[in-house]
């Protein structure tokens, strides 16, 4: 073969390879809606969108599945590289950060015009997490909150026939259980590598966790001090093991063995406990709303939202998809596929969900959920909260100094935010 023909062949091959790619690109750019979804939600989104394809055959939706562990980073990288999708599933605690970036499209007008999307039907605390600085930047897709999972049988053996409603009652139960199970078992699991249980109990206080519009930490406030004292006492009285989830290795087995009787965790564990606990224990566990300082308390308003990106050239089409995914009927189907709890009260009317005893506590709790402070730095502040807690429990830091230390760390992290707010104020 001569050099010339070889070169010719190579050229032809290259052109043949490039052609479909080019066509593919242009088609994607014209009509295809880019939708990013994470984890299990990403897996079932295709199934969920079959009906949408019938309703809007002219719209093709490309679903990009992201693993949860990489999703946040990918979204930020996409923003930096000007490659954001049209819409995406977002953890609702990420919204303040993407709001600071100016990456998201405000949805207030679209919701006001919508015939099917009624804000009043949503749990108020969940809806509120999507309102950043007065603008609606996402629509709740599913909800997540933390509450009590407990062993009914062990609680009954300790002499109680109903779950606790306030902290004092809960503490009495914990001590009674601890007396029953002895020194090498515990009454409650509060893993040292999670900040959510502590944050949930801290949100029950009337004072906010950050003060002056998220400019400073408020951990020296009386409210947080009360929560911290209550929380630390559970470790000090040996009611909770001073351990992280890594050392527990398998929380479901340990819950089954009675290593602890109470566990503050989220809705995904309903499915896990049903699957993993042996049949004879299935009647022995239940869920209950989180007890508060006085009577039933608040918990974290978590979950994922659907957000439309500002740079998207297809915002109207993206909004159509958001509306479709927000319909009660779609949400019920979504729940059946994933076990995720719906954010709309009307979607809870579905018989299978209404009849599920383990979900009832969540329905109750969702009426009392509160947003964590809506600043981009919150996740880092919460991580510091966990680290300081861990140091106190391990005896590296006196408990009395923890609030000062927390405020010091939070104030340092919020330094840039204060500078930016001051500059905006001056301009």
């Amino acid at each position, binding site marked *: 073969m001569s050099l010339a023909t070889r070169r010719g062949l190579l050229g032809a091959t290259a052109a043949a390879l490039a052609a479909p790619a080019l066509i593919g690109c242009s088609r994607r750019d014209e009509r295809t809606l880019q939708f990013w979804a994470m984890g299990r939600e990403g897996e079932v989104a295709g199934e969920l969108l079959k009906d949408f394809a019938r309703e809007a055959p002219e719209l093709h939706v490309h679903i990009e599945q992201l693993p949860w562990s990489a999703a946040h*980073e990918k979204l*930020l990288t996409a*923003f*930096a590289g000007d490659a954001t999708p049209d819409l995406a599933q977002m953890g609702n605690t990420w919204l303040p*950060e993407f709001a*600071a*970036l*100016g*990456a998201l499209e405000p949805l207030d007008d679209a919701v006001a015009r919508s015939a099917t999307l009624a804000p009043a039907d949503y749990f108020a605390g969940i809806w509120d997490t999507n309102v950043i600085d007065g603008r609606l930047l996402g629509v709740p897709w599913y909800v997540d909150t933390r509450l009590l999972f407990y062993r009914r049988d062990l609680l009954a053996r300790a002499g109680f026939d109903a779950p606790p409603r306030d902290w004092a009652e809960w503490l009495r139960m914990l001590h009674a259980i601890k007396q029953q199970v002895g020194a090498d078992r515990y009454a409650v699991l509060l893993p*040292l*590598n999670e900040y959510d249980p502590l944050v949930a109990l801290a949100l029950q206080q009337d004072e906010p966790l950050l003060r002056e519009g998220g400019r400073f930490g408020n951990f020296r406030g009386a409210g947080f001090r009360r929560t911290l004292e209550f929380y630390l006492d559970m470790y000090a009285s040996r009611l909770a093991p*001073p*351990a*992280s989830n*890594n*050392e527990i*290795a398998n929380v479901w087995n340990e819950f089954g063995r009675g290593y602890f009787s109470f566990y503050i965790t989220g809705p995904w564990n309903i499915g896990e406990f049903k699957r993993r606990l042996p049949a004879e224990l299935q009647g022995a566990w239940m869920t209950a709303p989180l007890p508060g300082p006085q009577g039933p308390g608040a918990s974290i308003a978590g979950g994922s939202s659907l957000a439309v990106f500002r740079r998207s050239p297809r915002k109207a089409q993206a909004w159509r998809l958001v509306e479709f995914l927000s319909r009660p009927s779609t949400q019920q189907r979504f729940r059946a596929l994933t076990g995720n709890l719906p954010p709309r009260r009307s979607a809870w009317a579905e018989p299978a969900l209404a009849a599920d005893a383990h979900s009832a506590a969540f329905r109750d709790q969702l009426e009392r959920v509160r947003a964590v402070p809506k600043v*981009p730095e919150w996740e*880092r502040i919460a991580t510091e909260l966990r*680290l300081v807690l*861990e*140091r106190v429990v*391990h005896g*590296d830091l006196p408990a009395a100094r923890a609030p000062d230390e927390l405020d010091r760390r939070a104030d340092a992290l919020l330094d*840039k935010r204060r*500078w*930016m707010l001051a500059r905006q104020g001056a301009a």
Partner: protein
Amino acid sequence: MNRRLAGWVFVAPALAAIAVFFVGPVLAALAMSLTDFDIYALADWRNLRFVGFDNYVALLRNPLFWQALLNTCIFVVLGVPLSIGASLGAALLLHSPMARLQGFFRTALFAPVVTTLVAVAVVWRYLFHTRYGLLNHALDAIGIAPVDWLGDPLWAMPAIVLLSVWKNFGYNMVILLAGLQAIPEDLYEAARLDGARRWALFRHITLPTLAPMLLVVSILTMAGHFQLFAEPYVMTQGGPAQRTVTVLYLMYEEGFKWWSLGSASAVAFVLFAIMFAITLLQLKVSRTQAGR
């Protein structure tokens, strides 16, 4: 075309690649370490502040940095001698004329090096488990109270050292084995005729001949150990009480978890300076040893 120009033309592609993929990014990172580049700066360049050496000053004032440096040093001081010792020991055993099934053992001992760390971590988490772990069962058998390997701030780093030595000694073992096989047999024979015993053979023939190789192995191992990241990342996530946060782990958290790329770059340069100084020292020590 003169010869000099021709020379430059030939090395130009390589130089260009180095400039684009190495020098450029390093200079950019150096510049970034002098700013407070973060998520806000990503949104709008006007939110970027030039902060001079503030990142470095803040880093040196940050107790977590010193904790991380201490953790890293503990890992290096415990891990490097143990790891090289294990490699040398295994290499000597494999090289011994009495060893049977050499090929099998060589493969078996090398296997951990090529096993995925994530899979290894799952197994080791169970080995380290306080109540069901094999390690504590063994300790129990000789009457030692159970150790909370991954939960006790005192024991977490030694546990990581154990895992890391087991995972990595096979690599150096292969290098040292090659070195051992290259030592001429007549040296030993001559020494034996002079009446040298086993220890004298090892001390005066094996070690000196192996010295250059041991130097290379120790520099590589130390450089590798200073960059400890994956083991704590999969085993402890820096806990308990941040006793397994290493310098590199700190950089990862600053940069990729919190997007404080300015201070993450500062960590990277401090780590670079430390490793550079230690490698220089190591080379110098080995030169004076060789000159003696």
